């Protein structure tokens, strides 16, 4: 997308208006009953007064979320490749993946700490588990998405399975691999944050702090923390989307 296009009021005005309405409503509620929501001004001063703590803890959360995301993404794509080559393996493994997806993943957290300890490791693992399924499904769909006519061209040339995978199925799955990353990336922050809240453990990470602040009725800080997490969610989604549109364009998909 061109920058000039983004600057046109028809692009940004609806978003700006919607944001203004939400913030206005927030402020209205906050000023009438202080028990429910802190005012925007008090959240802002909590943010500016504790920016160091907030960003340091956000960094800890990202330290859990991003390795979890990367690990599960790689495993999901490799597994999808293996499954694309064998119907038997698909039949064996896909139901397990679906079972994992419909389980209350958060409930895995406490038993995980039993052997992963109270450090950041169980949080990494939980972020990995929660992002695994969307990555896997998108990769599976992507590997099956190659144009039918192109598959036929490969078949009539008697291309090997490896050649078809390497020269057709894998490159054709690129848009789906990006879709997988776009969905999983912000989800990994959700996973890490929730793990921090459920598990307790080492006293780092914004999820952990938000919980503590809330229990001391430090609502200004808690909401500032949530806003910082939302900001990082937006940031990594934005990075993925920018990368996606650049790469897909360069690769002739758009």
């Amino acid at each position, binding site marked *: 997308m061109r920058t000039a296009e983004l600057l046109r009021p028809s692009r940004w005005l609806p978003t700006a208006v919607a944001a203004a309405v939400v913030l206005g409503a927030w402020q209205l509620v906050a000023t009438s009953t202080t028990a429910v929501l802190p005012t925007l001004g008090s959240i802002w001063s909590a943010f500016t007064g504790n920016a160091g703590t907030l960003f340091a803890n956000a960094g800890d959360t990202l330290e859990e979320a991003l390795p979890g995301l990367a690990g599960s993404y790689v495993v999901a794509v490799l597994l999808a490749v293996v499954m694309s080559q064998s119907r038997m393996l698909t039949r064996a493994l896909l139901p397990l993946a679906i079972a994992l997806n419909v389980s209350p993943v958060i409930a895995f957290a406490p038993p995980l700490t039993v052997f992963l300890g109270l450090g950041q490791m169980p949080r990494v693992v939980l972020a990995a588990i929660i992002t695994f399924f969307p990555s896997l499904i998108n990769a599976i769909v992507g590997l099956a998405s190659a144009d*039918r006519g192109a598959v036929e*061209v490969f*078949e*009539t040339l*008697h291309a090997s399975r490896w*050649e078809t995978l390497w*020269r057709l199925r894998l490159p054709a799955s690129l848009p789906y691999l990006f879709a997988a990353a776009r969905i999983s990336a912000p989800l990994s922050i959700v996973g890490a944050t929730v793990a921090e809240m459920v598990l307790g453990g080492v006293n780092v990470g914004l999820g952990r702090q938000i919980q503590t602040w809330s229990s001391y009725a430090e609502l200004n800080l808690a909401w500032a923390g949530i806003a910082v997490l939302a900001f990082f969610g937006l940031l990594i989604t934005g990075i993925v989307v920018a990368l996606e549109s650049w790469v897909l364009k360069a690769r002739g998909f758009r």
Partner: protein
Amino acid sequence: MLRATSGPRDRLLSAPGTPGADCIVLDGVTKRFDAMAWPALDEVSLSIPQGQFFTVIGPSGAGKSTLLRVLAGISRPDSGRVSVFGEPPEQASRAKHLGWVPQSPALLPWRSVIDNVRLPLQVNRGAKCEARDPEELLARLNLSHARDMLPAHLSGGMRQRVAIARAFAFRPRLLLMDEPFGALDEMTREHVAHLLLELWQAEKPTVIFVTHSVGEAVLLSDTVAVIGRGRLSPSVGIDLGRPRPEGIEDSQGFHQLTASLRAQLRRAFSDAGG
């Protein structure tokens, strides 16, 4: 002008090298799909001499594509025998004898024009094939200027020309073309058809071409067979001589041939009750 294909002159015209050798043979081939009321192919028998441009014409759902897929070894017939150069189709594809031009150009969007044309040379390298110079092919199809462009930036006609170049790149002995010009507008269609003719004239691979356009069938073919509800009517020869220059579509002979082929199509359908 339309005549049965058994005449000796026809053989002479269409089979240089090995006159009279039937290289593509279908013998009682039947293929059914559960969802269809009648078989896609119903006891189809056919023999096509080497070097012939053979067109199968018929409406959608008549079995045209199934015929091509059976010949390509993509689909297996329920019964009957298919022989491509004396071998089953799977063997012909293993030996890289088959060129395939699908309905959509089916180019790989991440590959430039030249790399799409090179693709057949990069897979199944074990099979011996005489590669053509991809650059020369592009030149012959007026695509040299688009050499490094991605398919997304090409017009429909250009994409289809790239698909044709790709099919010719490894000198296949049999070219299977499934309504390759179906998505093109009339003018582009004629232009690309003439480019295909020129390319074919130089190499004379056997071509089996599927279309629902009568004009295209007459312009391109040595022989045309009408297919309806899985049944193939007797083939008719197209006596237009070669090469066929641009503008031949406006000649008296061409009009007569299209008219009588249309009549034949109509008859085939009233017989089939369709």
